[in-house]
């Protein structure tokens, strides 16, 4: 591992717990500790703990912060309530996706600000984009990525783990925290921002805290009760979990060449009664027909459809795979793909060319997996 890679505050922990470290967007990150399937199943059945400190965290303060974000984000932000979180996209003028982000709002009088959690691979691009767009606005931007850590605790038992490790303020309970809401708590006198969010399709929480307490909190979560069988989970299972949950990943399902409408992210775009960068293009794109659409594919056999493999309909090329895996939960090969709208309907019978072998595939509704 070259020393040029960025390291999270948990890096030494990963290395000493035999994490297989890989270069992910310029960060040295664990792809797995034991096996992807074991870590995936631990998350679905008990609780998985993920170091996601590589995700970019950008703070936006200043009097124009709301207008600024409303000008950049595809989704309306003015009506977001204090402490709440919204999934949104940043687009360029042509409607291409610059990034998909989580937006947090904090209204505390002394410290009113918003927080954007952006993809690691897009952090520099988005920081520059925000900076470039900020000139007409009175806002202050600060990149908090290096001074904070971020840990995801995901799975059906996460709701039991978090209240045992992190103290909620009087009158509050993390178990009652609603989906896409946040609440600060304390761990050994350190402030931890707790949100009920995640990228696995399970119930769970994401925690943001100062780097200095990261290892201690990480260990406290893993060791909180052996009955929970909490397990550290690497990026390999993070990918298989989000894929089963039908969630797009930037660089695969989302790029600057893809717009939110073909990515089936209509819910994250509010075109009416507002203006934002990319809106005019998206308005026009909305009338267009014939754009490739994001779909889910379920395949026969056990071979894995991988990124770039062609999708065929009666031997005609109709699109390509953007992510694929062998689903540890459903035990079948799954993929997300962009295909022509004619074949993008549920039940459509297609094929994927797996290294020269045409393999039967069927368009299915996303997500592939939904928790009970």
């Amino acid at each position: 591992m070259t020393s040029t890679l960025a390291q999270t505050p948990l890096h030494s922990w990963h290395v000493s717990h035999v994490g297989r470290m890989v270069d992910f967007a310029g960060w040295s990150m664990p792809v797995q500790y034991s096996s992807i399937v074991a870590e995936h199943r631990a998350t679905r059945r008990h609780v998985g703990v993920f170091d996601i400190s590589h995700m970019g965290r950008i703070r936006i303060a200043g009097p124009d912060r709301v207008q600024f974000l409303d000008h950049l984000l595809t989704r309306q932000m003015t009506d977001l309530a204090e402490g709440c979180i919204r999934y949104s996209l940043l687009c360029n003028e042509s409607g291409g996706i610059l990034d998909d982000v989580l937006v947090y709002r904090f209204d505390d009088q002394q410290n009113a600000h918003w927080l954007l959690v952006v993809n690691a691979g897009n952090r520099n691009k988005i920081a520059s984009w925000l900076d470039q767009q900020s000139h007409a606005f009175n806002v202050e931007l600060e990149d908090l990525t290096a001074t904070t850590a971020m840990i995801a605790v995901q799975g059906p038992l996460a709701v039991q783990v978090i209240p045992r490790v992190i103290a909620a303020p009087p009158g509050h309970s993390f178990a009652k925290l609603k989906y896409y809401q946040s609440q600060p708590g304390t761990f050994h006198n350190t402030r931890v921002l707790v949100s009920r969010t995640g990228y696995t399709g399970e119930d769970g929480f994401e925690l943001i805290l100062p780097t200095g307490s990261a290892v201690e909190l990480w260990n406290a979560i893993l060791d909180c009760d052996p009955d929970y069988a909490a397990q550290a989970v690497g990026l390999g299972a993070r990918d298989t979990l989000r894929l089963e949950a039908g969630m797009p990943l930037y660089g695969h399902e989302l790029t600057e060449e893809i717009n939110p409408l073909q990515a089936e992210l209509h819910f994250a775009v509010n075109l009416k009664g507002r203006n934002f960068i990319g809106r005019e293009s998206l308005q026009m794109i909305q009338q267009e027909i014939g754009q490739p659409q994001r779909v889910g594919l379920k395949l026969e056999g056990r071979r894995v459809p991988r990124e770039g493999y062609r999708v065929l309909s009666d031997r005609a090329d109709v699109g390509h795979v953007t992510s694929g895996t062998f689903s540890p939960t459903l035990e079948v090969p799954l993929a997300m793909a962009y295909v022509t709208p004619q074949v993008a309907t549920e039940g459509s019978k297609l094929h994927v060319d797996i290294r020269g072998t045409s393999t039967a595939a069927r368009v299915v509704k996303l997500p592939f997996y939904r928790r009970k």
Partner: protein
Amino acid sequence: MNHEELLYAETHEWLHLTEQDGDKIATIGISAFAVEALTDLVYIQLPEVGQKVSVGKSFGEVESVKAVSDLYSPIEGEVIEVNESLANDLEALSTDPYGKGWVAKIKLTDEGGLANLMDIDSYRKQCSDD
């Protein structure tokens, strides 16, 4: 099979050589090191009986959740038997890589490839350098 007495290819296949009616027969499998590196195996594409294989050419593939890897033939010959049971018991590749996890038996038609193979010590050195 005692893995200390096997021959190894740079591409992580192991080979056990026997003689049968004057023919040289190689049993081929995948080293424990390689299986461990792959983890989460989901599929193996076995060669077919009668298939001709040649040195350094793919004769099958093994697929994990994360990636697909070719199996390269370390020798030149003809496949005379394949381990069909692996299709339903991929576990054998990791639990018994030098026994029940064997992949194919190949009748050599040329011994040229053998010279490139390593003994266990050289192979271990390669793995620790990887």
